[in-house]
């Protein structure tokens, strides 16, 4: 499921990010915000009339805002964390 479709306040994990849908500097900024495969995310607020505005979501301990086209590049999964990348053995 895409981050844009994730119900509000439902904890999830990032499955995959389509970096090609982002410009290099946007990709870098998202990475710097801690968004990466395996990171925990939670959608908090949808902004703008008719939900067409930006999305505020929690990544780790941080709240960030991004536009829907960026959020659509992020695939998430709900359920328990099995993200191997998050926790190197």
């Amino acid at each position, binding site marked *: 499921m895409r981050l844009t479709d994730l119900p509000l306040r439902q904890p999830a994990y990032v499955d995959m990010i389509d970096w090609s849908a982002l*410009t290099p*500097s*946007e990709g*870098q*900024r*998202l*990475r*710097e*915000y*801690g968004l*990466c495969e395996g990171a925990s995310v939670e959608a*908090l*607020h*949808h*902004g*703008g*009339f*008719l*939900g*067409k*505005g*930006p999305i*505020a979501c*929690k990544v*780790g*301990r*941080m*709240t*960030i*805002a*991004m*536009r829907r*086209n*960026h959020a659509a590049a992020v695939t998430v999964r709900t359920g328990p964390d099995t993200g191997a*990348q*998050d926790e*190197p053995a």
Partner: protein
Amino acid sequence: MSMLPLVALVGNPNAGKSALFNALTGARQKLGNYPGVTVERKAGRLALSDGRPVELVDLPGTYSLDPTSPDEQVTRDVVLGKQEGEKRPDALVIVVDASNLDNHLRFTLELIALGLPTVVALNMVDLATRDGLELDANILSRELGVPVISTVAVRKRGLDHLRQELDGLMNGAPAPYTARPAGDFDTTRNEARRIARAAIVRETPSRRLTAAVDRMLLHPVIGFVILLALLFVMFQAVFSWASAPADMLEGWVTALGEAVTNTLPPGIVHDFLLQGVVGGVGAVIVFLPQILILFFFILMLEATGYMARAAFIMDSLMARVGLSGRAFIPLLSSFACAVPGIMATRTISDPKDRLTTILIAPLMTCSARLPVYGLIISAFIPARTVGWGVGLQGLVMFLLYVFGIVGALVAAWALRLTVTKGESSGFLMEMPKYQWPRPQDLLIGLWQRAVIFLKRAGTIILFTNIVLWVLMSFPKAPDGVRQSEYSIAGRIAGGIHLLVEPIGFNRDISLALLPTMAAREVAVSAIATVYAIDAADDVEALDKGLGERLQGRWSLATALAFLAWFVFAPQCISTIAVTRRETAGWKWTGFMIGYLFVLAYAAAGITYWTAVALGLG
């Protein structure tokens, strides 16, 4: 180049670097609870315990040493010693937000890998505690390989300890720590998470205050209404709260004028003091309460963390005109003054976005326009309510601000379609946690603003007005001719008058237009001086307030046209200078001056002609 040892404060945005800088050096750098407050390098002095001075520099926050915007570039250049005429720092103080450890430690690791002597300030431990986090600085220090000191910058906690560590670093005491090699981005991030997990010894779930408040403030409809309501209350307050203290100030100014009249014999010194100084500058100073009320609101917005929310709410609208919500922060800052507003555009990464924002920033109503609006509104708009306790004067003020905002958005839209055409950029922003502003910080902020305003009144406004008074007082007019028209200034104004007569400006306004370039408030002092000089032989006129005298000489259509002019006209040398610096040249600066004057002329003209057609001329 200073020969003092150089220590740089670095870290993520909003970690509390400037707060720590202020606490360590006694400086008063601007703080704000949103990312991107500091946009340039600022230096200060710090004394080590043996009395040796050290130069401490506060830097813009950044997420890595790979800059994506001009402010971050500054930080990278300073830290890597690439800044022109500046040596590489001898040591780093890395400031980390304890409540956001996982994220901030990644950049910390990147910085530690530079191999400079380093100490980490684990700041905002109070917020971490509020979030139910308990951290162990010793574990953190062991894992990072550098000393870690817990601090609460705004409460000056942990500062002695931090100074001691700096002592050690600067005295070359070999740190018992070893530098760690840099890894790639993912490696450092995973390492940062591991270390954060190790350092957090306890985590109790806490109330999520910020998320709960955001549910209202970020709501697509409610949030937007709240933003509008905030601005509305702000301008109502500017009028209704200010009236009592403003009357008091006006009483003082009048008393001072009477004192001048009573103690000095009639003559040139008397006239100069009464008309040029007390009358002119006094007319500006009475607006101090209104300006402080405006700043009270701006400081509250900045300190609570609301700025980032305003950006979030405005993003959809800003996207329509080819900008992003991030541009709304410099625009809101421009309510105070366009100069810091234009500086704040350094946080915008896309160059065309940034340029557009610079070009429209002067359209936001800055505090220097407040006296001009205030004078005209109180003279021509009756002080009555329009129902529900809403004052008409405050409403007109609100409309003038809205006029500026709408003008700015339309201008952005037009610019983005033509001269600053380009891909529209995205909106990515960190949303800080809410904080209650501390009363003493607010008071200090207001005090600073009062000092700045009074200094302005006592220097540039006073100086411009003295020059104007001299030009207006000579040569002496023969009987029956108005002094303000016969004088040198009057003759120059006569030339300008030819240009602005079609848009309804009278001779008084023509006279004020040129000196107003120095500072917008001069419009008020200049007009006050014109009337003082012309009223010198007219005892009755002296007793009237400036507003009353305006009513006698201006039509409502002229007054409205004058207001419309002030919404758009780029009448401010400092704004022009900072635009030249930030756009690195005269090309865009000249463009800005040109398009704003054309807009101002058109807006004043349309207002005047419409008003005359409606019978208000």
